[in-house]
């Protein structure tokens, strides 16, 4: 459980978490999951922008870190079963 002495993440750490999530999302081989992960991280971070008390910020940051671990594992698993045909949305010209 988050103790009272848990340090609130700095602005740089939050931005770095955001960037790691987007970078890991980019590694997905499946178009749909990739786009969803990007959308979800952007929406999640934007909706939590105005948080001001330390505990909710730390909780949101910890949640983000868990999600990052999940996304990393899932990226590896998805790459094992990558579809052979690219999604039509990825083709530049049809």
């Amino acid at each position, binding site marked *: 459980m988050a103790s009272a002495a848990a340090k609130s993440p700095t*602005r*740089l750490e939050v*931005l*770095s978490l*955001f*960037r790691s999530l*987007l*970078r890991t999302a*980019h590694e997905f081989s499946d178009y749909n999951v990739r786009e969803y992960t990007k959308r979800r991280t*952007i929406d999640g*971070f*934007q909706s939590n*922008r105005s948080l001001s008390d330390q505990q909710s910020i730390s909780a949101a940051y910890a949640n983000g870190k868990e999600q990052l671990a999940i996304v990393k594992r899932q990226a590896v698993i998805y790459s094992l079963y990558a579809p052979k045909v690219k999604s039509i949305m990825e083709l530049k010209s049809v």
Partner: protein
Amino acid sequence: MAMRAAILRHIRIPVRSYALEFKPRELNLSGGSLMRFMSSHDEHLTKEEVVERVLSVVKSFPKVDPSAVTTDVHFQKDLGLDSLDNVEIVMALEEEFKLEIPDLEADKIDSTGLAIEYIYNHPMAG
């Protein structure tokens, strides 16, 4: 064996010594092309191409007003974006140019001018 040696004696490959002249690379940031004398990457991006692609990436960002985008517009001050949008734009630029920009550098990219300069000077920009 003797015949082999005799043949080898007759085949001589001249050893030529090349006088290598090391000229320092001239970095012309005022818009000219980069002069690289011993580079194997001959297809480096031109400044105009970098500018065009950077601007198109920034313009296609949904929260940005395309008409306000010029070659030296500040993301947060002029376009009204916040730091999260800044990170998003830098990620989009990374995807466009197939680069990997480290966090320290990415935090400094605050405007289109800086982005163009950074990408143009990056040797791996593609």
